[in-house]
């Protein structure tokens, strides 16, 4: 590629971020340090315009749970995953809605196709429950789930749905016979 193409690419990329109101974009390995750094960065930013405590806590909470879901995948050394893919994820924080006062958090990561049915079933279960149903599911999961298996991801997704009061939007994009790209979108709105 010619140099000038890169020049244009950077400008286009910059514009894409502005148009979509993406305020934080990261692609790469998600570790505990990265998670803490983003949490603190986002917190400081929200403090700078005196975001209200309830929204601030919700954004912080959802951000951490989403990043920890990704970092769990980053630790996944399943033989089915191609080297270099399992550690990578994309993480985006953006503004939304009326006067851009709401937030969205988007994540994307590779998942093995064999894990999709279980993940999809959980996401669908969550999306079909109301506030009380989610509370009951959380209570059931926290009592019965074990930390090494269910303690992480399934509590996290239920919790995100509860804290935001929004449905979890998701998609699985086919990559090949083994893997798909999983995208999760959560919104934090002032409802």
């Amino acid at each position: 590629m010619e140099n000038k193409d890169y020049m244009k690419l950077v400008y286009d990329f910059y514009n894409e971020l502005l148009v979509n109101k993406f305020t934080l974009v990261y692609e790469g390995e998600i570790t505990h340090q990265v998670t803490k750094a983003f949490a603190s960065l986002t917190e400081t930013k929200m403090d700078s315009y005196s975001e209200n405590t309830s929204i601030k806590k919700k954004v912080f909470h959802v951000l951490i749970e989403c990043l920890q879901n990704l970092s769990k995948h980053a630790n996944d050394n399943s033989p089915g995953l191609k080297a270099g893919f399992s550690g990578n994820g994309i993480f985006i924080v953006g503004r939304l809605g009326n006067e851009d006062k709401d937030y969205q958090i988007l994540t994307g990561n590779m998942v093995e196709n064999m894990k999709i049915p279980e993940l999809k079933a959980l996401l669908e279960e969550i999306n079909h429950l109301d506030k009380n149903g989610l509370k009951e599911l959380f209570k059931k999961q926290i009592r019965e789930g074990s930390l090494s298996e269910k303690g992480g991801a399934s509590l996290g997704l239920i919790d995100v749905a509860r804290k935001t009061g929004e449905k979890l939007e998701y998609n699985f994009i086919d990559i090949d016979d083994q893997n798909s790209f999983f995208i999760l979108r959560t919104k934090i709105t002032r409802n």
Partner: protein
Amino acid sequence: MKKVEIKGTDDTPNIILDAGSSILEFSGRSLPEDVVTFYEPLIKWVEQYAKSPNKKTEVIFRLDYFNTASSKILLDILLIFEDIHKNGNEVMVHWYFEKDDEDMGEAGEEYSEIVDIPFKIHSY
């Protein structure tokens, strides 16, 4: 039993486990990188305490934030106190939350529904 005092960090809570004063306290933030390893010695302490608890124990939670992995561990800790209570000892849990933080208040209510221990929820 030896008093345990752990100073909190940006991802781990302040913890005081003091059999002498019968007050056990957890405050601050809990999102350790490895929840199990962080809480293991503390759970061991509480399990040991449960073998010969004081007649009266106060457990104080004053947390600003905890992740879902920590929420599971907190339940494990509360379940040990439930046993202490079931064995005829007085246990009182005080759950403090910042008044704007309804989610933290709700979390306290939920724990009080799951475990059978006297629970007082306070906003500040």
